[in-house]
C-alpha cells in the first residue's frame, strides 16, 4: 500500500508511503513553491548589498555578492527623505490602528452583546463596508479630504485608514466576542456590575488574543496602504515608505536599483519582524475574517 493522502497522514500513517514517492509528490513541489515565493526577498537582499558595477554586469554570477557594500543604505538613510517616510509610516499606522481598534471594540460589543434595536442590520452594514474597495473610494474621498483642509497632512491618512480598518476589526471582534459565554456577563449583571465594568473587567481581558489578531492585521494593512497615501499626500515630508520609494527614489531614466531594493527591504522588515512574533495571531485574524 503506497497510496497516501491527508487522511492517512493525519492518522499518523504517513510512514506507509515510500520515500521516493513522497519526494516526488510532496517535497519537490513544496520546494519549488518555496523557491518561487521567497526568491524576490533573496533578490532584494542581494541587490541592496551589491556595488553598482556588479549590478550592471551580465558576466558575473548574479546570485552572489562578490564585494558587499553598504553604499546603498548609506545613500538611502543620509541623502534621501527615507527616515522621514519611515517615521510617518510608523505614526500613521500606529495611530490609525489604535483608533480603529478602540472604535471597533465598542461597536463589536454593542452589535454582538447589547443587541440594540437594529444591531443585526448594523452588523450587515459593517460587513458590506468591508467589501468597499479603496480604488472605488479614493476620488470622492480626495475631495472630502481637500474640503476639510486635511490635504497633504498626516491626518488625511490617519482619518481615512479607519474606513477599511474599522469594518475589518469590528467583524473580527464580533466573531471573537461570540465565543465568550453569555453566562459570565449574566453573573456579573446579577452581582450589580454595570455594562462598562463588564466590558472592561470581563470581556476585554478574555478577548486579548482577538485584540492582538485584529491589531496586528490592522497594523500591516495600514503599513501596506498605497492608493490613499499616493493621492492624499504630495510633499516629501509627509509621504509613507511605499509611496516615497515609488515616487521619489525613481529619478529619470537611471534606476538606482541598489537604493531601491534597500528601500524595499527596509520598508518590509518592520512588518515582517512584527509578523514573525505574532504569526499565529495574524493567521487566525486572516482566516477568522474569511471563515465567518
Amino acid at each position: 500500500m503506497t497510496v497516501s493522502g491527508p487522511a492517512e497522514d493525519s492518522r499518523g500513517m504517513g510512514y506507509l508511503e515510500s520515500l521516493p514517492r513522497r519526494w516526488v509528490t510532496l517535497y519537490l513541489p513544496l520546494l519549488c513553491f518555496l523557491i518561487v515565493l521567497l526568491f524576490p526577498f533573496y533578490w532584494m537582499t542581494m541587490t541592496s548589498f551589491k556595488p553598482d558595477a556588479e549590478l550592471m554586469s551580465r558576466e558575473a554570477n548574479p546570485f552572489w555578492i562578490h564585494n558587499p557594500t553598504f553604499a546603498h543604505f548609506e545613500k538611502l538613510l543620509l541623502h534621501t527623505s527615507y527616515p522621514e517616510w519611515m517615521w510617518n509610516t510608523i505614526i500613521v499606522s500606529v495611530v490609525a490602528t489604535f483608533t480603529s481598534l478602540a472604535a471597533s471594540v465598542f461597536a463589536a460589543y454593542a452589535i454582538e452583546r447589547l443587541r440594540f434595536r437594529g444591531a443585526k442590520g448594523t452588523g450587515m452594514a459593517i460587513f458590506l463596508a468591508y467589501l468597499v474597495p479603496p480604488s472605488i473610494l479614493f476620488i470622492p474621498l480626495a475631495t472630502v479630504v481637500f474640503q476639510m483642509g486635511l490635504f497633504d497632512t498626516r491626518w488625511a491618512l490617519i482619518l481615512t485608514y479607519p474606513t477599511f480598518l474599522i469594518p475589518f476589526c469590528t467583524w473580527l471582534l464580533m466573531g471573537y466576542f461570540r465565543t465568550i459565554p453569555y453566562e459570565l456577563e449574566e453573573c456579573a449583571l446579577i452581582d450589580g456590575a454595570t455594562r462598562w465594568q463588564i466590558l472592561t473587567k470581563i470581556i476585554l481581558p478574555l478577548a486579548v488574543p482577538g485584540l492582538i489578531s485584529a491589531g496586528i492585521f490592522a497594523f500591516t494593512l495600514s503599513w501596506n496602504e498605497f492608493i490613499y497615501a499616493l493621492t492624499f499626500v504630495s510633499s516629501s515630508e509627509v509621504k509613507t515608505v511605499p509611496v516615497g520609494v515609488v515616487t521619489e527614489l525613481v529619478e529619470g531614466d537611471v534606476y538606482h536599483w541598489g537604493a531601491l531594493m534597500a528601500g524595499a527591504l527596509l520598508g518590509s522588515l518592520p512588518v515582517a519582524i512584527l509578523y514573525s512574533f505574532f504569526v499565529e495571531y495574524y493567521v487566525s485574524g486572516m482566516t477568522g475574517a474569511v471563515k465567518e
Partner: protein
Amino acid sequence: MRPFLDNRNALGLAFMLPAAALLLVFLTYPLGLGLWLGFTDARIGRPGHWIGIDNFESLFGDSLARLSLFNTLFYTVIASVVKFALGLWLALLLNRHLPFKAFLRAIVLLPFIVPTALSAIAFWWIYDAQFSVVSWLLVKMGLIDTYIDFLGEPWMARFSTIAANVWRGVPFVAICLLAGLQTISPTLYEAAALDGATEWQKFRHVTLPMLTPIIAVVMTFSVLFTFTDFQLIYVLTRGGPLNATHLMATLSFQRAIPGGNLGEGAALAMAMAPFLLAAILFSYFGLQRRAWQQGGGDK
C-alpha cells in the same frame, strides 16, 4: 446615569458612535459623493455641474476605457484561476505530515504581508529588460538567446503583471484553504477508505464538497482584490506598454488625479461596482454553505 447605562438601545447607540461617525463621514458620504461626481463634469478645483450620463456615454465610446475593461477582466480571470489552482495545491501539500510545518506555513505567507508596492519594485527589477535575473538564467541554460522584454510588449507585460499578482495572492488563498482543510474530520476519509475510494475520489467527493463554502468566500475576496488592483500595475507599468496593462482602477486614477478630471474618473471607478456586486452575489447565492454540509438535512 444608571438607567441610561442599562438601556441597551441608548448604550448601544453610544457605543456605536465613534465607529459610525468615522464610517459615515469617510465611507458612506464619499460613496454617495462618488456616485454624484460620476454624473458631473467636476474637475480639480472646480465644483461640477450635473451632466447626466454624459460621462458614462463618453466612456462607452472611449476605446481606452473599453480596453481597460478588457484588461481588468482578463487580469482578474486568469490571475484568480491560477491563484485558486496553485493555492489549493499548496494548501493540500501543507496539510500533509511535514517536518517544521508551523515554520513552513509562516514563511509561505511572507509575500502576502510585505507591502505590495515594495515587492512590486522587486519584480520590476526582476523583469528589467537589460539585467533581468530570469533572462540571465535562461540564457545560461541555453533556452533563449536574447533577453526577454518582460514589460515592453503588450501580451508579455500582461502575463508578467499577472505572474506578480499570483505570487502575492497564492499565499493568502493557500493559508485560508489550509484552515478550511484542517476542519474536515478525518472520520470522513476513514469512511471513504473503507468504501474503497481512491485518492482522487476522496478529493473529489470529500475534500472538495466540504471545502466549497470556504472556497467561495476566499475566492470572492481574491476576485474583489484582483479586480480593483491598483498598486501593482501603478508600480510595474503605469498602464503601459500601449495601455496594454491599464486596469479600470489605474485608468480612473490617471484621469482623475494627474488628469484633473474628477467626474470622468469617478464614473470609471463607479463602473467597477456592478462587476463587484455580481461577483459577491454569485458567491452568495451560487456557492453558499448548504445545509447538509453543516450536518442538517438537504432542503
